[in-house]
């Protein structure tokens, strides 16, 4: 018996061969190259020039970079915390209440609707939201003025005190569908008999939610938090289209700053350094998450 079980597991490494090869070529080697480039000064065509740790010294003292980093952390609120919490609530609401009262079709309809913003290419997001937030005839200000709250009408994307907030609103709008879909699929996995048994034992909705549901879909929650965090730390497209990191550097993010260095000022070496900084932060976070996840899985399988 023991021998048989062992043979289930031995040789699985074979299945990893295509994945590992592809990743080595497409990701790992460029990553290592990137590290190498960060120690050089390079314009992209002529041979790079070795300058040691100069780029890193520059990074530590670069106020624009640290400002962009701060903006990124603030964006985490809009792109990870709020979407996860709201997404979880929405998913549960749709899965329980709406499905039970209105049927699967209706809840699927809403799920599809919430997910739609994720389908938009960033170019379209930029165009449309720039309209909506237009200070003179955009919808938002139009509505505010219409209901007599003119003082609330701002120059959303042009005023540095509101620009980041406006970007955050756009990102919540964009991000919310993703957790909803993942969590609804996760809720699917929960054995309804467990919940029925708890109800019979007298558990309230809230108790069921916290002690059973949340616990059982923990893997998905971790996945959502991790992936949205990583996405936030790499955010580029929407910021590029909405504000180009402006006004001033009010909405600049590290990824955009790296892009500027790569493709606008042709400082490939420094751009690589910035990218590497982002990557290191992401790696640390991911290792942390995976360790938490693995520990939980081990605890469960015991």
């Amino acid at each position, binding site marked *: 018996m023991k021998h048989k079980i062992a043979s289930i597991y031995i040789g699985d490494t074979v299945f990893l061969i295509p994945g590992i090869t592809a990743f080595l070529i497409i990701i790992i080697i460029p990553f290592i190259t990137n590290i190498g480039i960060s120690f050089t000064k390079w314009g992209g*065509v002529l041979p790079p020039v070795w300058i040691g740790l100069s780029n890193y010294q520059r990074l530590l003292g670069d106020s624009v970079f640290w400002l962009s980093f701060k903006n990124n952390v603030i964006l985490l609120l809009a792109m990870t915390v709020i979407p996860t919490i709201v997404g979880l609530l929405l998913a549960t609401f749709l899965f329980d209440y709406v499905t039970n009262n209105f049927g699967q079709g209706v809840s699927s309809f809403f799920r599809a609707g919430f997910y739609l913003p994720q389908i938009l290419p960033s170019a379209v997001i930029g165009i449309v939201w720039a309209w909506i937030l237009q*200070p003179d005839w955009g919808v938002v200000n139009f509505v505010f003025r219409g209901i007599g709250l003119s003082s609330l009408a701002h*120059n959303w994307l042009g005023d*540095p005190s509101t620009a980041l907030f406006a970007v955050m609103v756009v990102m919540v709008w964009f991000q919310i569908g993703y957790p909803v879909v993942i969590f609804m699929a996760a809720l699917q996995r929960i054995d309804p008999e467990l919940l029925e048994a708890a109800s019979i034992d007298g558990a309230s909705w809230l108790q069921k939610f916290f002690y059973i549901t949340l616990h059982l879909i923990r893997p998905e929650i971790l996945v959502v938090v991790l992936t949205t965090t990583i996405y936030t730390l790499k955010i580029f497209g929407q910021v590029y289209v909405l504000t180009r990191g*402006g*006004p001033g550097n009010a909405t600049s993010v590290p990824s955009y700053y790296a892009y*500027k260095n790569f493709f*606008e000022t*042709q400082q490939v070496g420094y751009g690589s350094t910035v990218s590497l900084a982002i990557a290191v932060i992401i790696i640390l976070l991911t290792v942390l998450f995976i360790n938490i996840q693995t520990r939980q899985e081990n605890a469960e399988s015991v």
Partner: protein
Amino acid sequence: MSKMFRLFSLVLIAVMLIGLGACQSAPTPTQAPAAPQPSATTAPAAVQPAATATTAPAQPAAATATTAPTQPAAATATTASQARVLNLWYYEPPDGALGKAWAAAQTQFLATHPGVTIHFELHTFEQIQQTSQMVLNSSSAPDLIEINKGAGNAGTFAVDGLLTDMTAEATKRGWDKILSPSIQTTCRYDPKTGIMGSGNLYGVTDYGEFVMLYFNQDMFTKYGIKVPTTVDELYAAADAFLAKSITPFATGGAEYPAQQIFYMLALSKADRTFVTNYQLLKGIDFHGPEFTYGATEMATWVQKGYVSKNAVSMKAQDMQNDFEAGKNPMLMGGSWLFGGFQTAKLPFKWDMELWPGNKISLGSGGNLWAIPAGSKNKDLAYDFIDITLSKDKQTLMGNSGGLPINADTTKITDPQTQKLNQLFAQLVATDGIGFYPDWPVAGYYQDLVSATQELMNGTKTPSAFLDEIAAPYNAAIKK
């Protein structure tokens, strides 16, 4: 359900396989590059005779005076025998003056080069801006491409060795006589430093551009305000409009227009030496009289309300829309807007003048035709440039609302277009070409946009603004 899924996947796999086949034949018209720099000048020499022979009939006498009309039949035989393709990329929209002139140039090229086809691709400014360096350095590079002028673009490519040195060819074909010295400034780059203004000819432009005052004549008439020709009159007009609760000037802080206001104001206090020092990265005092005036005056404009504070986040298109909708009576705009205004058939009378009070205004030669170093069809590319520089194509450009540099001005029919050309000629003649504020340094454009937004928002004082824009400039000098 799994049946449907399986069926769908089968269909998709089939599409994939078919597509993979199509995929192989997709791209790369030109083969492997790697023609080292020196050969650039020697290779064309061999095919020279063939090229001139085929273009000779098309050119009016004046242009071909310097190109020896020689070796007919024997030479044409070689070009006709191979099916050659000229790969041409540019990003001027087809309904604009340049687009129309260049489309006509393509037609003429095909007529005079039997057996040669043109593979033409219309790109965008941003595409070229972001990826041109990578494309030029690959076998996907075209034979002739429109690139942006300035040290950050053409200059960088020159230093990287990605462009063909056209100096000799230009002399041979008489281009150096067509392009005036101030126009040639944007065509020449130092191959070691990339600085604009001297060195080899890496680009050829066939049009010009400048920034001027556009105004809504009807609005001036309606309120009984005099159209300004001097600085005092300009401010008087602005104040008069303000009194009527009309924002005098349209602009856009999210793109180039706002920084151009700053630069234009600065230029009103500048002389040729200042411009040269600034543009050629020789170093200037950012807190000197010129830029200080520009910054403080612009801040004053915003304070007084000459430009709307909301304009901070507006793009150039928004600025145009506002002017066309009659929201603002005046606009500091480029000659590139002229064609669009004409096509839009605006419901009011409008006109333009050189910016009052400035001896030097923003302006320059246009974007450049450049030939990637690895091109195997340089002769064809040279021919095409010839055609775009020819008198009748230039006149066509003029008549379409463009700003040619070699047109027959007597043949330009529309009086407003004639005026546009006259204004430009005047600017060139008085050595009033001031170029653009973002040229000296690679990536400077975005820094200027950010900084100007902060100046307009009031989050930076004029002095702080000047410090901010001085930083990248001075850093570039150190390199």
